[in-house]
């Protein structure tokens, strides 16, 4: 049986899954706002939808950060172990990869959110 590792391939790609979910949700909600006038009422100077999109972005970033922090902790502890063992090398690789995936997923989410700050919901 394979050696169990705290971070596997699925776990490694989770931050990008979060990116994908965020992307799809934001895009769909924006579509609903324009086609079905969902959450268009202004609240504190912005449309409700804009607030919702911001909240979803914050949520996505928090979830990604949690994955990223776990990966970073795993990487630090793997780095503290002595060199030489195959398991240690694998652990270092997977945790480093997971942390970097989280970073790029966070960049992706921010890229998606920037237009929300710059453009009106429907134009």
């Amino acid at each position: 049986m394979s050696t169990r590792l705290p971070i596997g391939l699925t776990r490694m790609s989770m931050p990008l899954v979060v990116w994908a979910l965020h992307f799809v949700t934001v895009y769909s909600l924006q579509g609903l706002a324009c086609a079905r006038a969902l959450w268009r009422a202004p609240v504190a100077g912005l449309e409700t939808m804009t607030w919702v999109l911001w909240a979803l972005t914050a949520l996505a970033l928090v979830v990604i950060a949690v994955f990223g922090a776990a990966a970073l902790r795993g990487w630090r502890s793997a780095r503290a172990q002595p060199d030489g063992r195959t398991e240690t090398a694998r652990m270092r690789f997977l945790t480093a990869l997971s942390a970097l995936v989280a970073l790029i997923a966070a960049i992706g989410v921010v890229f998606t959110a920037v237009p929300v700050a710059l453009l009106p919901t429907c134009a």
Partner: protein
Amino acid sequence: MSAPTPDHTIPTPGDHLRHADRIALLERVWANGRGLVGQLTAVNHTTIALRFIVTGLGFLLVGGMLSMFIRLQLSWPGLNVLDPERYAQFVTMHGTTMMFLFAVPIMEGFAMYLIPKMLGTRDLPFPRLSAFGWWCYLFGGLFLYSSFIFGSVPDGGWFMYTPLTDSTYSPGKGADFWLIGVTFAEIAAVTAAVELIVAILVTRAPGMDLTRMPLFAWAILVTAFMIAFGFPPLILASLLLEIQRAFDFAFFEVARGGDPLLWQHLFWLFGHPEVYIIFLPAAGVVSTIVPTFARRPIVGYTWIVLALVATGFLSFGLWVHHMFAVGIPLLALAFFSAASMAVAIPTGIQVFAWIATLWAGKPWLRVPMLYIIGFFITFVCGGLTGVMLAFVPFDWQAHDTHFVVAHLHYVLIGGMMFPMFAGLYYWLPLASGRMPSESLSRSGFWLVFIGFHLAFLPMHITGLVGMPRRVESYAMELGVQWLNLLSTAAGFVLAVGIVAILIDVALCFRLGRRGTENPWQAGTLEWALPHPAPKYNFASIPVVGDRDPLWHDPALVEATRRTDGLLGEAVEGRRWILGTGIQSAQPEQAIRLSGSTWLPLLAALSIAVLLGGFITSQYWLSVLMLLPLVGLFLRWLWTVNGRETPLEIDVAPGLRLPTQAAAHNAPGWWGLVGTLLIVGSLFASLVFAYFYLWLNAPAWPGGGATLTASTPMLAALGALLAAGIGAWRMPIALRAGHARAAVVWSVLAIASAIASLALQLPALADAVGAPQRHAYGSVVWTLAGFQALHVAVAVLIAGFVALRIHRGHVDAVRSLEARIATGFWRYVVAQGLIVWALLHLFPRFA
């Protein structure tokens, strides 16, 4: 057929043969049959992969020939080389051929050839599936091209936009040839995806854990997952359009509540990831060749894996950037514009890692490396114009002009064809045992490189000036005729270069100078093989201790050619490969593979006749062909993992492993997982279509449909849950040793699932009426049909497994087939619940 015939000359396990006898046995067991029959029944990966590559190159020539006519027509305004109708046909067939019949299949060919050899195994885990895929690809391509014979060539563009391609604006059979032929050929893409995912996850050589996996394998793993998610939207779109054309459904017709933009969404949901499905394997080739010629290990291995994984995801967030001009709200466009720029980050990471590797190494300029340099220059230009087009205002300006033609050829020829030629030359000594001609291969490169840039660089200008694409001529007033003449002339230089390369490669197999082994002194495992590689690849499965195993341990070459290592003896005279742990790559199981068989060819032929019946509206023939098809697939399944397969074998002295029927990580299980990803993506695309139509519909349910009655609806839900219980209990009973109870649970699941459908369909007929009335009815009936089809397959599977249990082929230990059946059933029940909610619940609240 692969039915076991007792052969008394074949040794039993425990016999200890001499090395020469063991090699002779491996040769015999892994050989294809003799003559034509042997070719028609071959399944092993070397044969099939080379066929993919040769067929792909054949279609490259055909597609290239079409482009020569296109260039002749455009060489000066007002020419009549092709009339407008022919021009549209040639443009359509050129794009379709290059994307579906050349680029994707040839990359699959490379992957199928190299992955087992690089991973240190003997074959792909489902050899019959590889062969089946190739036949489907070949027949699909021929089906598409037979449209020339019948005088109804597709002319709606390779993107087949509706409403141009619906039966009102494209009467005749042209669009049908496209939809059916391309979908037929795509079977090869999805089967290859499943096969490659499973091969990379469970058949790597012992010791090749995730940190030591070749970057090419990472690239192919990501690509295969992308195919699994990316191809289904197009397959679904093609099915919907074909259903609309054949049976007058209304998915894309505005007058009946449909929406033509739905096609564009589904098409580009496939179409953009497709670009990366083509590019990532090429990037894997580059990541393999660059370290060899830099003569040092790759710099930034982790970063490159990161880039591959990130591209795999981010490239799914770009599809609307092909639709910037269709009138979507600006904010939505901006999401896709931003994602289009984000995807440049991982691509940039890879380019920098390659440059760093060359910088830190001692580069050696041989022919493959020349093509890599050609790739760098061309692809970076194409990438930059891609970033320009990602800006919405710029795209509005350049949309549908030759600027886009220039961009996409820089990306595809630069990003895929140059690396492909690099790979062709790089691995040619391995496949042929001979070296290509240095002078001819260098001339070929320069012809292609100069021809390409002189042909496509001017198109940036002609496009910016305003020369439209997809139109058979242009106005003299644009003043671009000289640039076009240059493009045409250079296009012919490019063509001559490609022909020179192909002649060089073909001659190499006959006349090439005998090469030394591992002529480039590469570090990856495939170079441990004798050149040309024997059909069984490795006489003993190697044990790997490094990312570049041959640089790390030169003695490995010798070890893989002795027969005293892992699986050196062909136990019972059968084809065996080794299965290892997904992360750790420790030996876990012995996997018995099928030998040569007629099944793949016959199955593909049945599909060809079925589709032929469909396109000629002889639906009785299509229905009739389901019989041989189902029969062949049942026979296919019957001939693996039966009680004649031992439960354990000796893979080496002192190492005894379970065979796959009794193993946890069996390839069949992961094959199911891969298949369900594809089926799930197909279903998700259909659900997307449902919601898309809902979003743009004034009333839901539309077209005068009403809500379904409550009683049958609730009863159907109950029956579905009962089916779920039956499917859940079946393997539990089996594991506890109650074979009879397992059969009873199977029967319960079958009966309940059928009852659930039987309750829903009449209620639906009452409430919704004919599917032709409105897009609502069309999508609702398609959902119901989709579920019915899956129930039919699940019923077949459950019946099959029940029979296998009854016959003693499946039991508490040999439980793989029962696990697979339950896995599929769980999926079908879950899908049934979603379909049920969409058919009955959602319209109540919409």
